[in-house]
């Protein structure tokens, strides 16, 4: 029998596993006794009673609604207790909030009478309160400030908004974190630094938000690179895969880096989704094969949509076309005037595959289309030169017709 003295935590202002065991809902049968004799204003007594009820209800496990209500009350009480405590309370607060979210998720699946999101929304309000009481702490002693924990609570909010499919709430959260950026400690100096998975999660959610929802691939790339670098192989293989699913296209769009497949294959097990999905597309970006790109795009269209990658993957097509133009220029002896007729030949071959025979001379419609696509490349500074419509040719800059793009 282990006796856990709750008084001590609130006197010494520190927590250990004993406090977390007390807060935990599903360990009723374990041989712990919890003692609380400290005089308090009633909030701790209430927390004690609610927590013990929650343990019992979770053990009996016949009334999901009751478990949910108790978990809700537990977090609300803990929020009120945490308001007057220092930074030590933040991890236990996160622990209670996380536990509540797990309970809210389970009940969502089981109960179809109530609006399926109502439980999560109620849970979200309590968690948002926890987040705010970290964010808005005004403790003059910086090392005791609860702000250190706001990333952990932010991760819970991100998770919640994912479950609710609520992008607006996510946007609000990011805005708040940005506008208060000067006041909150940097991620690496916050409580998250002691819990590596939170470093990975926060960077991942931020990168996903920017890249998938705001189409800001530069920010997306930078957060996701951070997420990746915080990962440890073997421990985080699943997360590395999910990070790479987003990071590979963002890297291609911004820094033109692509994965060193051999290194990754050596490190990781072979059921890696990221490499399987992206490797064929990377090949197309390197050889200019539009048809294979289109085929792979069509095959994975739903996957791209579900993972928020549709825009990014669509934008990559232009880079396949760019590679094709560059190869066409190389294979025709790097002329300073590239005939559109040659580009048309290459384009027909690339976009239609090997088998179809095309007429020897491209028609005006195709040449117009190509002029339009080339004009876009010039406008984006991916090609240096100009188009001569009258002569149906692309006049290329003598110095660096294809500007360097690696950064």
């Amino acid at each position, binding site marked *: 029998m282990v006796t856990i003295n709750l008084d001590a935590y609130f006197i010494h202002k520190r927590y250990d596993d004993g406090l977390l065991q007390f807060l935990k809902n599903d360990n009723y049968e374990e041989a712990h006794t919890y003692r609380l004799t400290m005089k308090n204003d009633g909030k701790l007594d209430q927390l004690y009673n609610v927590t013990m009820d929650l343990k019992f209800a979770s053990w009996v496990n016949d009334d999901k609604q009751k478990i949910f209500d108790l978990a809700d009350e537990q977090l609300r009480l803990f929020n009120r207790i945490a308001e007057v405590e220092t930074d030590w309370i933040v991890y236990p607060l996160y622990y209670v909030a996380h536990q509540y979210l797990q309970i809210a998720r389970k009940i969502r699946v089981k109960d179809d009478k109530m609006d399926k999101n109502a439980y999560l929304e109620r849970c979200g309000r309590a968690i948002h309160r926890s987040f705010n009481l970290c964010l808005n702490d005004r403790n003059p002693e910086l090392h005791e400030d609860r702000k250190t924990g706001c990333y952990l609570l932010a991760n819970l909010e991100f998770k919640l908004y994912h479950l609710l499919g609520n992008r607006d709430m996510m946007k609000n959260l990011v805005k708040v974190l940005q506008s208060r950026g000067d006041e909150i400690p940097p991620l690496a100096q916050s409580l998250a630094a002691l819990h590596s*998975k939170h470093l990975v999660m926060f960077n991942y959610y931020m990168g996903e938000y920017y890249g998938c929802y705001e189409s800001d691939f530069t920010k997306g790339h930078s957060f996701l690179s951070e997420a990746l670098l915080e990962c440890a192989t073997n421990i985080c293989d699943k997360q590395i895969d999910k990070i790479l699913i987003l990071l590979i296209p963002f*890297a291609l769009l911004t820094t033109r880096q692509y994965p060193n497949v051999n290194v990754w294959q050596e490190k990781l097990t072979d059921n890696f989704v990221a490499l399987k*999905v992206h490797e*064929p597309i990377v090949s197309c970006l390197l050889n200019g094969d539009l048809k294979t790109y289109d085929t792979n795009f069509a095959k994975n269209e739903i996957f791209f949509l579900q993972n928020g990658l549709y825009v990014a993957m669509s934008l990559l097509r232009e880079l396949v076309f760019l590679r094709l133009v560059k190869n066409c220029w190389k294979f025709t002896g790097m002329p300073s005037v590239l005939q559109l007729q040659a580009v048309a030949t290459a384009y027909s071959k690339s976009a239609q595959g090997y088998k179809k025979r095309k007429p020897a001379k491209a028609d005006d419609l195709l040449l117009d289309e190509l002029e339009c696509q080339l004009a876009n490349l010039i406008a984006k500074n991916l090609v240096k030169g100009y188009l001569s419509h009258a002569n149906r040719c692309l006049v290329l800059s003598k110095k660096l017709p294809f500007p360097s793009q690696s950064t």
Partner: protein
Amino acid sequence: MQFKSPEKCNKKTLEEDDEFEDFPVDTWPANDSLRNTHNGQTNLWEEDWDDVEVEDDFTKELKAELERNRQQQQ
């Protein structure tokens, strides 16, 4: 290199889509992170985008096609 078709594993990710946060452990030593075991990003990523030249079936056929086209034009 050979890659199996992606459909099968796609399905798996979609079903488990929500579970990014299921880490087997809460924390690990900073020394074990990719940042420290892999010298930052070097060698995880290829950086030869501007100069890379691929020789495969597609580029060979493209070359041949352009050559055929050139001869026809003359």
